[in-house]
Each structure stands twice: as structure tokens, then as C-alpha cells.
């Protein structure tokens, strides 16, 4: 197991390196640059800007300097669009916000989703099942960009219960709407996957055996059914967790959270190379890490899996 983890980590480094190089090259060849402006920047100023940010160097040198800065100084460079901030500062400002609402929203989606899915499977074809499936379909057809304005209308405009946007770490009322809006559609998927997986497990041989032994139903479900039923759910949750904690441009836009999701999209549109690279690396690293974590979880859940 230990050797496996080490091996995976060893592969992760070249993967990340490749990701950086390919992203950098793709970005470089995208039409328009950070300083393409409606009113053309005078040639002399443009030359200075390019020199200031090292954009006049050959591509290989740019990539080398960039990597050197990260590895040696953990410095992701200055933002081209927000001259007051470095990429490190931008990420340090936005990522904690995203992480907060991402994790809480993930927990909400998993708790409610698994609960609904298990309920639906146990009372298969009963009104409880229909209710759970109904909620899940309802949530599925309400993507966050529809959910957000609806929540805002209800809680901010009509009932004046919650602030309509903004962020404060000390005041959880700012967190509620982003968390709910982000969680709903994920919750729906989790419900569906849990339900079908649970149904399959409940129909399998070892469950029939357990029931035949006269084991109480409660124990059958908690000890014998739940764990194997979680396997497909967990492989779904790995990437979902990463995508939730790395932010959602919709949530950031509608609730003005200042999260990293909006910065990422903006950086691509603004050709803010440094920010774009910084967030790409953050996302890439998290994806690799959590995929590994999911693989390790598999072993714990299903003893049949060995590496």
C-alpha cells in the first residue's frame, strides 16, 4: 500500500509538470494578449509591459522562469490585470472563501443525498421512494444559475432574512445561500447513484444470506449493505469534491463571494496568464491528490480491491 502511494505520487510530479507546460503553451497561442486593448497601448509602453512581465523572452525561457519561481520561491508571479496584487495574494484571498462554501456544500449534498438515496432504496416503490426521487429530480432540473436568483428573491427580497451577496468569515448568514445553491444539483446526483447502488446491493447474495440468518434488517443495512453500496458513490464524490472546493463561477458571480471560481474565468478572458496558471496548478494538484485519496478509500471499503 505504502509503495503504491509512493508510486502514485512519483507519477503525479511529471503529470503536473506536463499540465503546466501544456497550459502555458495553449495560453500563449490564444489570440489576444493581456495588453490587447480597445485603445491600443503605445508601442513603447507595450514593450515596457512585456519586459516587466517577461513576455518578451522566448517561450521556453518564460516557462523555465515560471517553474523556477514556483519551485524555488513558491512565487506564482504578479497578476497582469490586478497590478496591486500578486497571484499568491489573489489565491490567498479567494481560495479560503471557496474552500469554506465548497466543503460545507459538499457535506450538505452528501448527507442529504445519501440519506434520500438510502431511504428510497429501502422503501423501494413506496411513497417515500417517490418523494425522494421527486426531490432529486426537482433539484436536478434546478441548476445553480436558476437556484441562485430564486433563493435571492425569496430570502433577500421578500423575507429580508439573508444578505443578497458578499462574504464574511465571521457571519454565517452570508454562507447559507451559496451553500444551498451549489449543493442542490450535486445532491440530486448523489441521491440517484446511492439509490440505484443500494438497490443492487440489497438484491445481492450476501444480503439474502444475512437476512436468511435472521439478522435484524437494521443491522443488515448498516453493516452489510451500506458500505458496498457506497463504492460507486465514492468514485463519483472524488472529482465532485475537487470541483466543489475549487469554486463555481456561477456562485461567485451571483453572490459576490470573491471566490476563486470567478477569478479563474476572468483570468482566462483577460489573458491574465499568471493568475490562470496559478489557479490551473492549484486545481491540477487538488485533482491529483483527491483521486489518490479516493483510490485509498476504495481499499478500506472493499477488501477485494488490492494494489
Amino acid at each position: 500500500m505504502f509503495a503504491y502511494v509512493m508510486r502514485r505520487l512519483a507519477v503525479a510530479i511529471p503529470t503536473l509538470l506536463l499540465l503546466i507546460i501544456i497550459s502555458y503553451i495553449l495560453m500563449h497561442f490564444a489570440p489576444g494578449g493581456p495588453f490587447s486593448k480597445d485603445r491600443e497601448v503605445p508601442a513603447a509602453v507595450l514593450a515596457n509591459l512585456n519586459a516587466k512581465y517577461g513576455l518578451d523572452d522566448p517561450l521556453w525561457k518564460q516557462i523555465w522562469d515560471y517553474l523556477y519561481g514556483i519551485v524555488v520561491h513558491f512565487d506564482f508571479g504578479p497578476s497582469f490585470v490586478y497590478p496591486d496584487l500578486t497571484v499568491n495574494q489573489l489565491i490567498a484571498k479567494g481560495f479560503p472563501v471557496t474552500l469554506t462554501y465548497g466543503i460545507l456544500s459538499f457535506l450538505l449534498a452528501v448527507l442529504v443525498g445519501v440519506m434520500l438515496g438510502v431511504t428510497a432504496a429501502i422503501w423501494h416503490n413506496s411513497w417515500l421512494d417517490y418523494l425522494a426521487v421527486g426531490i432529486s429530480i426537482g433539484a436536478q432540473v434546478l441548476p445553480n444559475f436558476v437556484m441562485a436568483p430564486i433563493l435571492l428573491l425569496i430570502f433577500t427580497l421578500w423575507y429580508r432574512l439573508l444578505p443578497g451577496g458578499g462574504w464574511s468569515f465571521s457571519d454565517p448568514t452570508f454562507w447559507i445561500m451559496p451553500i444551498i445553491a451549489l449543493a442542490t444539483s450535486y445532491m440530486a446526483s448523489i441521491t440517484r447513484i446511492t439509490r440505484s447502488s443500494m438497490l443492487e446491493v440489497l438484491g445481492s447474495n450476501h444480503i439474502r444470506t444475512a437476512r436468511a440468518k435472521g439478522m435484524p434488517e437494521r443491522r443488515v443495512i448498516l453493516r452489510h449493505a451500506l458500505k458496498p453500496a457506497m463504492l460507486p458513490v465514492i468514485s463519483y464524490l472524488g472529482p465532485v469534491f475537487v470541483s466543489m472546493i475549487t469554486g463555481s463561477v456561477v456562485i461567485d458571480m451571483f453572490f459576490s463571494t470573491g471566490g476563486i471560481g470567478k477569478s479563474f474565468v476572468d483570468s482566462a478572458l483577460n489573458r491574465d496568464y499568471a493568475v490562470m496558471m496559478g489557479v490551473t496548478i492549484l486545481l491540477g494538484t487538488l485533482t491529483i491528490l483527491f483521486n489518490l485519496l479516493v483510490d485509498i478509500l476504495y481499499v478500506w471499503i472493499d477488501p477485494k480491491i488490492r494494489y
Partner: protein
Amino acid sequence: MTKFLATTALVAVLSLPVYAAQPAEGEKLAEDQSLSFWILDAIKTLDPQLTESRTDSDMIRQLFEGLMTQDDTGAMVPGMAESHDISDDKLTYTFHLRDAKWSNGDPVTAGDFVYAWRRAADPETASEYAWFVELMNLENATAVVKGEASPEELGVTAIDDKTLEVKLSKPTPYFLKTLDHATTYPAPQKVIEEHGQQWTQPGNLVGNGAYVLKSHDLGVKATAVKNDQYYDAENTIIDEVNFITVNDQNIALTRYQAGEIDWFNLIPAGQYPKLKEEFPDEAISVPWACSYGYVFNLSEKGPEALKDLRVRQALSYAIDRDIIVDKVLQGGQKPAYYWTHWAMEGFEEPEIEMANWTQPERMEKARELLTEAGYGPDNPLKLKLMYNTSEDHKKIAIAVQQFWKAIGVELTLENYEWKVFVDKGNNQDFEVQRYAWCADYNEASTFLDWFRTDGDNNGMWSNEEYDQLLADAATEENPAENYKKMEQLLIGDMALAPVYHYAQPNMIKPDLRGVPLDNVMGDWYAKNLYRVAE
């Protein structure tokens, strides 16, 4: 050198101490004097010499003050400079500074302006707005920006702490109007040298404006509070200004209605009439100094067809501007038959033939001209229209596609994201391009300069007489006549098809007073506003 007062507005205002919030008699001030202003995007920078965005400038204007400021009609009034003299040749301006302090208590000196202006022009700073110093025609500006002269050679000198001398390379009638642009605000050298690029962070930032930065949460909210060191602090009523970022206009409108935002200045297209009906006291549309049009590519890279004046005229005539303004935008915009925004100070409306025709007349002429030019059902004119991603541009483009279809033009719409759009425009890689220009200062030349032979004009239209009229306008006592002739040349040759003049449809809370609705530039100072008790 003669003592010379630039404008009548200046004379009028000199009798008052400064321009400030002036509640009318009988108005009772509200307990809460905080103001929340909506902004669409995150503030990119609060560094006056680096900013290039209108959003940033709206906040920077509260934190810093230039030599001049504007009253609520947009007329220039004394700011940091109490008075000024202009030499007979109009090349030397001498500004006499008032006693004022930075927010850290240091006096504001002429040297702070010299430092700031040099900083803006210095290639080392790499400011994207370095060209503004060139626009001001400061002596040696172009050479300094190009790196051919040292910043010390820029035409700005501190005679003493209270006297600033500015030398221009040529007479510039709009010079005083540039003095309220962020690029020209003074900068605190000591603070910038101490903190480097971190000097604009809350706690570090030192300004000379009516407010001082308290917090800045990128993409969420920035707050400025009253600056006690400000020379007119005793007449400043609003004590806290919040800039709230909401990236979606409809959400912003909801938050306005929920009372979280007091002033929202960009109602989405099509929604103004309904809001005006529902909130007649709050929905207010005012003219705003930007113009929108379709630019024809007349360069070598442009299509042959567009080089024929008859084709350009036909295309321009066929656009039903009333439909665009009344049915698509619906926010108080006006149809445009010339380029300069109609409300610019001192601008007189030019006589433009097509403006007086009815739309059926225009359509008839358009068909005739197109047939004359050799296009018809057997040989339809095919063109491409480039616009950047936006619902509003798309709606207008689709309308124009229909208008042009009616005269037998097959128009293909090409949508690009902003950076690609800008690149293609600057490199003449388009046939017809949607374009908009917003005034840098309140005078017609800011619009007309775009079509100067070496100007920014993406369509590469060029006309010697036009260039001469523009150059002459700089020394004319009354350049309005020149501007009129220039518009006639521009439209006579249909360098572009003007479409509409902007308006700014606002939602303003009824207790907020002093909003400068008559300032076509849309610039405002929180120190001139106040809230009344309802």
C-alpha cells in the same frame, strides 16, 4: 502673463469656499449617511496612475483629488488648485495650490503632482494610460513615454510647494478638462517608495481626497470612510462609501430593491420602462457621453464593396435607429446620425441630411444606391459583422441583420470574446465592426480625434480636410464650427454608420440627494451627496 479665469463657472464658484454638498432649505438630514454604490466588476487597482477602468476611477475619485474637480453639471471647478493663470500663448499654465493635507497629515505640495505625472509617463511604470499624458499635450510627453527623454524633461515643474507650472507642446483647449482624470491625481511618493506596489492596500493607502480607504475585499466590497484631514471635511456629509461588486445586473437590481444598494446605474436593456412605471421617483435615465456605431473597414484588408460610398450610405440609411432605441434598448438612448454624443459641452448639433428623412425614405434611397452600385437579387452584397460577446450587442446585430436583409444584404454575424475582438479590430481583420467610444473629457474632440488619420480609427478612414479642422480647433476661440464641419465630412463620407447615443438608466434611492444627473461624463463625488430623512 495675464491673470485669466478659465470658465465662467470658475468665477461663480470662487465666491464660495469650495463645491460641496448643499442640502436645500428645509431638508432634514438622515441619521445614516452611508452610501452603497453598485459596480459591475472587481476593482482592478486603486493606483491612480495605473488604472484604466471607469469602475476603478469611480472609487479613486473619492480617495484622491486632482487640480480641478467637477460640479454637478460637469463644469470644472477648483480642486487642489485654488486658481490658475494661463500665458498669452496658452502654452504655460501656472496653478496655485490650496492648503491641503494627505490623509496621513503631510501637506499636499506641487511636488506631489510633478511626481505623479512623471510617474504616469515614465516607461518604468509601464502604465497602460501613459498615453493620457500625451493627450494632455504636456511638453516632451511623447518622448518621455517612448523612453527617448527622461521623465524629468516632462513639462511639469514645482516652482515652490504651492505653485505648479505646466508647459504644453501646443495650445490645448480641453487641457483644464483633463485635470480631473485619475491619471493626473497627485501621488504620495514617500508611501509608494515605502510599500511598493502594495501601497494601495487598506492601511497603506494615503490619499488627498474626501475619503480614505478602510477595507477592500476583492470582488466583494470596498469601503471608504470620511477623511478628517480633507480640507472641506466639515461640509462633507456622507460618511461612508461602499462599492459593492455584483457581476450580474439582474441580481444587482434585486439587491437594490432589497435595500442593499442605494444607486444602481446600469439597468439591463429593455427593463427601464417597466421600472420607471413601477418606481417613477427612482428610475432616472440621463445622457451619458458614449456613442455606438458600425465601423466600415476601409483599409486594404477591407472588402472592395465597402470602398464604394454608395454602399456605405445604403447600409447606414437602412438602419432603423428608432427601433434599436425604442424597442431594443429602451433606456432613454437617442438615435445617432452623427458621431459626437449630442450632450457634450459646447457641441452644436450638425446639419445631417439623413436625420431629417423618414425611415421609408431612407430605405428607398438605400435600395436605389445599392442597385446603382451594382448589387441586386442576382448579385447580393455579402458582408460580415463582428461584435463582442454581450446580449445587447447581439440583439442590436440581429436587428441590423434584418434591416440590411430588407435591402438585399446577406449579413453574417461573427461573435468574438473581447480580447479576440479587440485584436481583430486593431489589425483591421474585419469587414464591419460594432464600436463604441466613451469621452475622456467633456468636449467633442474626444470623439472626433478617433477619426484623425493617425487616430485609433480601426476602419482607417482618412481625410486631410478633417485632420486640418481638428488641428485648427485647438487654437480656435470657439471650435464648435470646426466640429460641426468635421461631423459633416465624417457622415458625408460615411466613415461609419452611427447607431445611438448612450444614456445611463439609473435606479437611485429617493432619499439620496445631490446625484450629478446633469454631468454627462457620469463622474460623481460622494462628498457632494447627502441623504435626507424621509
